[in-house]
């Protein structure tokens, strides 16, 4: 239906900590979108949790603004935590 709004679908896998964007679909409302997402995106046991968000509710950065947005951080290596020596006995690093 052309008048059904677009929803973006986010899934969290069994071992995943965060929801990952997997695609989009059309639905009449959020409840229907959730069920459509279950049928379209979890058929192969991919997920344990689904979020749906109306695409029009997402504010996205524009590709035109890509350079002013992201270029300035490209040459600031000192922002990366690579200038420390990590002691050998610090776990999970």
């Amino acid at each position: 239906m052309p008048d059904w709004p677009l929803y973006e679908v986010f899934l969290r896998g069994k071992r995943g900590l965060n929801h990952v964007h997997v695609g989009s679909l059309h639905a009449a409302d959020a409840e229907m979108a959730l069920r459509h997402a279950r049928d379209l995106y979890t058929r192969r046991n991919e997920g344990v949790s689904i979020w749906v968000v109306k695409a029009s509710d997402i504010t996205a950065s524009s590709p035109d603004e890509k350079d002013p947005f992201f270029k300035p951080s490209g040459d600031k290596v000192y922002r990366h935590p690579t200038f420390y020596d990590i002691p050998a006995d610090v776990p999970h690093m």
Partner: protein
Amino acid sequence: MTTAEFDEDDNPYDLLAEDHDEGHRWAFGTGFTDPLDGVDTAVPDGVDPAALARCCLALGDDALIYSHRLQQWVARLPELEEETAVANIALDLLGQARLLLSRAGGILGRGEDQLAFFRDEGEFRNVALAEHADRDFAELVVRLLIFSAWRLALFENLAAAPDPVLAAIAAKGVNELAYHRDYAARWVIRLGDGTDLSHAKTQAALDALWPLVGELFRGDPDVQAMLPASPGDRTVHHGTEHDRAFDAVLGTVLATAGLDRPAATPLALVGGRAGRDGVHTEAMGYILAELQSVARAHPDATW
């Protein structure tokens, strides 16, 4: 599908699909091997094998024929998303049919394909509701609501069946049927409580299908024999009284949807016999012709 910029190296599906306990990702039904492979199929003492086989045939045929009817909707539904939903439901039911026909076939000495493709109409035990051709989307969702509410109530009871294989098949089916019922109920409420036109079409679908409900509660002796021995474990009361769970679900959904419960009389029996006795409606011959013709034309073909 519109998506944001998509980096080949950062495919979200790789992230989601990796490391999910291998072997269970492709759940029941993708292999063409025996779906009961590795399962102890000995019939326990105290269970009549012939009655168990007839029970599994009845419930398996309901699923097989209903699945076929849903498959016929694929590529004809109004929306891609609904198509996937209906195809998923058809696949769930086909999976149930495979397990149940395999259980029956193990006792009868025939394979699931033999039972599905090489039985004649009179040997099929499905109810008439399974073979009904939906005339529109309203009939699709109303019929699915009736079928899944009835079958779910039955499977919840069969999950404690004295035969452990049937009990396991029923327990697996409960989750599937609960989703089917939820899908159907949401659409019945959406359409019944929608516009004047959608309400009228949904009420018409309910009126058209209601005569087929009576057969569901005739109480097949073979199915009843597989229910848990203790009456306290049962919520299904076959015979003159309609199943309470079914009544409650239908009552709630129809009330929310603003639909009237029809007072139609059940479809007349043919000499006291109906679907469970191998007596079917005219539609059944056409279904079987489509379902069986390829297998019968090439009986030695393999998958």
